[in-house]
């Protein structure tokens, strides 16, 4: 089972019994206490009654990790995130796979085009790192043949980046 899958299960159980539509909640740029209070308010639950220390210290903090998000999608269907600026829960889009490509969603907080362009290199490296974690040792860095980067504004200054990493077994440089 992929890393992180088991750790989500108890949390889903808690949500499932009270708020089935939401799935898993991920904190964005908040401390543990802030997240606990705000999410509890949204879900109408008592403060801290459902926050699982073990999970919160691990998977929840890794909200930009597409693999964790991918595992959550696979196991529970929907993953939501908390938009701190607008105080609302938003859905994290599902990642996809196709023939010779894998897509990763990299949640980010970069509202302006200038900032987005400056961090393009960072986005590329993140996508590559996630690709390698998912596909190595079968595929290596040299097997990446292209990356398609899409910006997905979510409102309230939040932007997701979708990075579609194409790959094949590269023996020779392409002409």
């Amino acid at each position, binding site marked *: 089972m992929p890393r992180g899958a088991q750790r989500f299960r108890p949390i889903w159980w808690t949500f499932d019994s009270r708020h089935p539509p939401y799935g898993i909640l991920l904190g964005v740029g908040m401390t543990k206490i802030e997240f606990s209070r705000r999410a509890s308010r949204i879900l109408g639950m008592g403060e801290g009654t459902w926050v699982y220390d073990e999970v919160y210290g691990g998977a929840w903090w890794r909200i930009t990790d597409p693999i964790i998000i991918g595992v959550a999608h696979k196991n529970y269907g929907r993953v939501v995130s908390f938009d701190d600026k607008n105080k609302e829960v938003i859905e994290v889009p599902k990642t996809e796979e196709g*023939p*010779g490509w894998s897509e990763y969603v990299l949640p980010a907080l970069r509202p302006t085009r200038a900032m*987005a*362009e400056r961090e393009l290199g960072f986005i*590329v490296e993140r996508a590559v790192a996630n690709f390698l974690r998912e596909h190595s040792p079968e595929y290596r860095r040299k097997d990446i043949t*292209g990356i*398609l*980067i899409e*910006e997905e504004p979510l409102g309230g200054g939040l932007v997701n980046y979708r990075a579609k990493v*194409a790959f094949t077994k590269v023996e020779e440089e392409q002409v």
Partner: protein
Amino acid sequence: MSEIREYHTMFPDISNSTLEVIRHTVTERGLWRVGKEEGFDLIRDMYEKISSVYGFPTPSLIEDTYEYYFISGERIGLPKVSLVSSLHEYRHHMQKKGRLRFRDVEVDARAWSISAFHYALPEDFDSAWSKGRIWYLPPYPGG
């Protein structure tokens, strides 16, 4: 995991003007004979000409570690001079402008770029295919 198809025949109807730009860039201006910097300039020039064929704005091109197309910034990154890779990334630019024939954007880009090479420079295409220098194609039929 990766898909192998007869990508070189999937776009038999690429415009003659586009094919002529590719031929001109390779045979007359020597894309494969020049140094890296000049090669990048030739690709920029090729992008400009192909964009004028379709009436699109020209995407910017920079040298970078990986091949990529940044959709919102209309920016292409390439690590080296490669005709097929540059056409592949350009096809993503065309997709942004509404040109998409195959549902999977990667299949569409592979098919357009490899077909463009095949129809513009058939002999060079055969030679490159036989040497395994075109990604995503099945084994060369000539053995």
